[in-house]
């Protein structure tokens, strides 16, 4: 499967959290791969395991979380088997990550310039002075106005959009092979949001970085993605290239998501919503996890839905879905 340009291949990743009620599976057997210069969007609602998958790959899980099984092959190394010392050489250098809330993601007591230059000092063995010069260059690249004085600013003196630009500058400083962006625009207002996304696309064109973009905003997906993974309750429920998934979604959950996008100009009394709730991760049903909220199952009578977790049925090499109703080719 993997060819020269495949940057990262995650296979059967399962991540658990220790809780007082026993171990809870937050990410259940997910697999995906990403190629050079490509953007993969992971979509899903809060708590579906999008961020946890990314943190697992980066080795940044909180102490209560652990990777139970799976592999994440990056440049012939399995990231999940690496010691934290080995991972440190990759993080920030070949693999980098930006986060949801730019305001709290920068160290409040360090000057912006120092925080950007630090990455050059760590990975490129630069002196502090050289690092600061490179940092200024990076700030110019991410189009920060008046970069010289911003170098000396503290994070609390920056706006959210500006802080996110700094985060992008840090993340792209060493021309990483992969950038994981965990809801990078959720905390920003809409105009800033598109500026940040444009900036990310521009930088991607220059550096051919593969971007894994985690979001719950389907508008962002439509704008940025080459491929999409839809996650529900820790599992992948549908994957495919962005056009196929948007134009002919298969899984009832994806369909419901698409229906819930409000369309400008179309008058509706209420927005479409998916009825019911996401099941709690410590009390998962034995069958399909979406079964209780699924509208389409009523049209068919399938005992499988209630009793057996559906596997992923692939329709062709690029498109697949985890639903008994559409068995596809199998």
């Amino acid at each position: 499967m993997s060819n020269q340009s495949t940057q990262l291949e995650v296979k059967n990743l399962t991540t658990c959290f220790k809780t007082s009620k026993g171990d809870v599976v937050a990410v259940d057997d997910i697999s995906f791969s990403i190629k050079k210069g490509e953007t993969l969007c992971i979509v899903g609602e809060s708590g579906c395991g999008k961020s946890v998958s990314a943190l697992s790959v980066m080795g940044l899980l909180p102490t209560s979380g652990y990777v139970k099984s799976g592999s994440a092959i990056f440049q012939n190394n399995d990231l999940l088997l690496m010691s934290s010392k080995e991972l440190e050489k990759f993080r920030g250098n070949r693999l980098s990550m930006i986060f949801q809330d730019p305001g709290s993601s920068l160290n409040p007591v360090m000057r912006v310039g120092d925080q950007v230059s630090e990455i050059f000092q760590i990975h490129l063995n630069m002196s502090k002075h050289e690092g600061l010069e490179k940092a200024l260059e990076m700030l110019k690249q991410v189009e920060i106005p008046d970069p010289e004085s911003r170098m000396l600013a503290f994070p609390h003196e920056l706006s959210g959009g500006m802080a996110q630009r700094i985060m992008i500058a840090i993340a792209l400083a060493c021309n990483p092979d992969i950038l994981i962006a965990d809801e990078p625009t959720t905390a920003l207002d809409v105009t800033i949001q598109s500026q940040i996304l444009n900036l990310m696309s521009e930088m991607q064109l220059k550096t051919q970085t593969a971007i894994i973009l985690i979001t719950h905003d389907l508008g962002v997906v439509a704008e940025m993605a080459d491929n999409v993974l839809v996650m529900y309750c820790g599992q992948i429920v549908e994957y495919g290239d962005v056009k196929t998934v948007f134009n002919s979604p298969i899984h009832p959950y994806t369909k419901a998501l698409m229906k819930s996008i409000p369309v400008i100009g179309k008058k509706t009394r209420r927005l479409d919503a998916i009825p019911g709730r996401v099941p709690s991760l410590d009390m998962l049903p034995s069958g399909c996890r979406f079964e209780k909220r699924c509208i389409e199952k009523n049209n068919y009578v399938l005992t499988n839905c209630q009793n057996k977790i559906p596997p992923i049925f692939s329709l062709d090499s690029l498109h697949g879905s985890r639903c008994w109703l559409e068995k596809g080719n199998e």
Partner: protein
Amino acid sequence: MITYILKRLLISIPVLFGILLVTFVLARLIPGDPCKAILGEKATVEVCEKFEKRFGLDKPIHTQFLLYSKKIVLADFGNSIRFSRPVSQILVERFPVTIELALGGLVVAILAGVSLGIISALKHNTPVDVGTMVLANVGISMPVFWLGLMLAYLFGLLLKDTIFWLPPSGRLTAGLSSIPFFEVWGWEVLKGTTKSKFLEFFANHYIFNALITGNWEIFKDAIRHMILPVIALSTIPMAIIARITRSSLLEVLGRDYIRTAKAKGVKSKNVVSKHALRNAMLPVVTILGLQMGGLLSGAVLTETVFGLSGVGRMLVEAIYARDYPIIQAFTVMIAVTYMFINLLVDISYGFLDPRVRLE
């Protein structure tokens, strides 16, 4: 920054005046009569009248206060009723003892407390963490005087004639005496002048004096005498600092910017030392300022247990004797120290956290 410090110093003048007023009034509100306390219960009325006249106690209380404030401005604390000596001279002799003790206690409390807190936070939920925190709890619960007596008993008596023996009382071994640096260096200083008092004040810090004159015998001896009192005094603040450091560091280590630092590939030891520690120190510094009060009051008990003639012990004795000038002068000095330390805390707060940096 300089304007801020000047402003703070200016504001402290009315505060000082308030302290002066309160201590002046409180000292006179203590039931009892200085004449009877000092000359004995059998002192006659005539004797007492003469006594009061001599020390100006016969005048109305507001006149007394005005006269007193006037003298304070000229740095004259008056004469002790009990010793008939200038209070400033007594301060010069006593204050350095307390400063050495409190500074030693503070340094040990910060170094040991912060290190224990860091170890505890990094070994979160392991036997090391539990052990350290149990020790910290024991430390907080231990009365200073009891700990002092136990230390003196253990190191002064039980371990006598071993290399672990430490002197349980006094500042220097009998027979040794500290020679002031200005005498060593042959400066000509007239005794009793302000200049000589000033120099004596510094020379009476035996450890400091021995250090600058290079007298290692006295230096070692003075330090050995300080070890037990400093341990006794620093235990409680150390335990509190350890607990605050631990909880604060644990909280900071869960913050988003720590995750960012890790995502940048910062080595785990640098994540703690470069990114987490400075953020975690903010609550510790706040507590430090508050603990200074505890340190000064703890000094009273410590000085009593270890036979050190410092400010704390002197103050307690002065209260018994209704020695008003000493009570007032010493209280004011302690208040000034406390204010000064809190000013330092506020300034260091701005250095640690740019968000509260003062314009």
